[in-house]
């Protein structure tokens, strides 16, 4: 099964909510929509579901144009950030409700509900009412209802956002497994880069109503096509360094470095470089490296690692160092960056040169 968006756009009056978008989403893999609040994730999902009509473009389901078809006739299931269940029904009846609407035989309903409840580990709670359950169980009930419907398209709009951190971690590990077993096209919206990475599958990054990149999640993360994508797909935020290539030297803020061999063929001129927090280090790495003088703004220790907030000639950077490094604010430090991890962007924000970060084995 495939869901295809062809030049789909949405505008309300003069305000563009979604710029023309082309996307092909296939079944069997999880499709993540990653972007900050108000970047258009929910709008795009509503267009996919048929809850809203696009102002331009077509929505194809298995090659068939379904643009004007009502959501009720499309076979769509949706789960929201808020835990939405029928409060007066038991968990069993909640999960069974879409099947009863379809008019399935009682025995079929029974077995499908049992199977979904089993997958979601809800079997002990089937006779309870949703409000007697914890937040995680309530959301699992909503997820089970979406699954049991066996809809062709399942849309999950930040389904874990209102759950506790640890519970979120557990469900994140479970969700991809559920999707592998189902034959539907899954779309999952989130604001968190870690969540996209943990879910795997494919990711479309969104920024101000535009899909900036779509591809396998690890590929989008490691080879963002532009500065905006890199920024959306980076937490802590990607560190930014404005530099100039002059012959075989790279000049920046308070220093300079030899041009890494990988970038030797670039024309001279100004560039914007980006690199991730965990690629900064206090020790010189083995290969080609850039050194920076910076001042410590603060150190946050997570137990096994240290987030180092740095000031490099006015730019604010975050470094993620292994181990506990309780550096006092105001301390001057030399930080190193492995040149292999430097992303380069031109003035328009497009990536220049090959993808800097190696693919996972």
């Amino acid at each position: 099964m495939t869901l295809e968006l062809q030049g789909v756009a949405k505008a309300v009056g003069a305000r563009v909510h979604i710029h023309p978008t082309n996307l092909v989403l296939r079944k069997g893999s999880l499709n993540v929509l990653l972007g900050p609040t108000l970047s258009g994730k929910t709008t795009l999902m509503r267009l996919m579901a048929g809850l809203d009509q696009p102002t331009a473009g077509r929505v194809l389901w298995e090659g068939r144009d379904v643009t004007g078809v009502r959501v009720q006739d499309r076979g769509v299931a949706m789960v929201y950030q808020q835990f939405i269940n029928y409060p007066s029904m038991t968990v069993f009846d909640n999960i069974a409700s879409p099947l009863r609407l379809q008019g399935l035989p009682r025995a079929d309903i029974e077995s499908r509900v049992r199977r979904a409840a089993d997958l979601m580990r809800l079997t002990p709670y089937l006779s309870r009412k949703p409000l007697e359950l914890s937040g995680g169980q309530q959301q699992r009930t909503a997820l089970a209802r979406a699954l049991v419907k066996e809809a062709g398209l399942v849309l999950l709009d930040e389904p874990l956002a209102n759950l506790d951190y640890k519970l979120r971690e557990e469900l994140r590990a479970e969700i991809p497994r559920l999707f592998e077993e189902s034959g539907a096209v899954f779309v999952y919206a989130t604001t968190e880069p870690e969540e996209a990475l943990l879910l795997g599958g494919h990711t479309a990054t969104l920024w101000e109503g535009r899909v900036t990149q779509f591809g396998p999640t690890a590929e989008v993360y490691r080879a963002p096509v532009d500065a905006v994508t890199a920024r959306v797909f980076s937490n802590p935020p990607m560190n930014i360094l404005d530099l100039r290539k002059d012959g075989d030297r790279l000049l920046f803020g308070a220093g300079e470095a030899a041009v890494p061999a990988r970038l030797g063929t670039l024309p001279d001129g100004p560039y914007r470089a980006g690199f991730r927090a965990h690629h900064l280090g206090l020790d010189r790495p083995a290969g080609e490296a850039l050194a920076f003088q910076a001042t410590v703004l603060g150190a946050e220790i997570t137990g096994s690692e240290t987030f180092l907030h740095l000031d490099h000639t006015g730019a604010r950077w975050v470094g993620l160092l292994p181990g506990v490094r309780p550096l006092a604010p105001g301390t001057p430090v030399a930080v190193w960056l492995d040149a292999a991890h430097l992303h380069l962007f031109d003035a328009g924000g497009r990536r220049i040169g090959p993808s800097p970060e190696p693919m996972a084995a």
Partner: protein
Amino acid sequence: MARITLRNLAHSYLAQPRGEEEFALKELDHDWADGEAYALLGASGCGKTTLLNIISGLIRPSQGRILFDGHDVTDAPTAARNIAQVFQFPVVYDTLTVRDNLAFPLRNRGLPPAQVAARVQAVARMLGLEESLPRRARGLTADAKQKISLGRGMVRQDVNAILFDEPLTVIDPQMKWELRTQLKALHREFGHTMIYVTHDQTEALTFASRVVVMHEGRVVQIGTPQDLFERPAHTFVGYFIGSPGMNVLPARVEGDRAHLPGGAIPLGRGYAPLSGRTEIGIRPEFARLSATEGLPVAIRRVEDVGRHRIVRADLGGRPLDIVLPEGGPLGPDMTRVTFDPAHVGVFADGWRVEGEAAR
């Protein structure tokens, strides 16, 4: 600023609690040092919000006393405790400008206008709100509004403590970094006693110098982020701190060796014979895959999370997580796992057992 003392404190939402399990907050004795940044970390329903509300005076505890700098304030109302609080959702006075919002608590206390203006200016500068000072609060974004709530807490110099109730819940991940950094800078600058309630371990560990981990109404451990990570006092702390959490495996401990289904592993310390349920705990960061040595594991799945990979494996029928550094090797022949002996903890009935230095 003040030192906050909790003495035999406990709370039940029932008028006549029968037994300990009916207490939302089990008996607790604790001193919150003046000027320190604390985090209260736990899952929903663990009692952390109850404890915060007792400190702020919204709830009167069923038993015990609460003291600010030695003065009993158990029966004092919120207004008399001179504290500041930042809530989960931004609380701003919509119709007032940002400036008037920040000045509000000072004006209510009758401070001279010149002093008010100076304080407001200083706090706005720290929070990067200077440009929005003349704007009405209503139209601002969630993070700007939360900065205002934060600023209203900071603007008073004499507060005994600033309490935070999951203040970054509605903030986008990228903005969280900025706000947290500012919060830490404000703490350094003004030195208030701060108590920060959250279920998010990253927020708790990065914000606080001491983290109080709560579970089912009980404080299970108070320690620095490093303590909690390296020497969790309870398997719950091991599970709750760290992402993924600590691997907990049932084992038979004999001296300085632990027997697992796949074989025996060395421990960094020696242990006297243990009673009760014995388990070992090992963080995924201290487990290594190997082709030649260690216990046999079956690898179920590998998750690439960018800066490292999480290997989901199976050790004698129990799930085991292993963290593999970015770019680290992972071959098909790597079907064994070794643990760093110095970081293997031993737990009896859930609680950590301190061993003796190895002979």
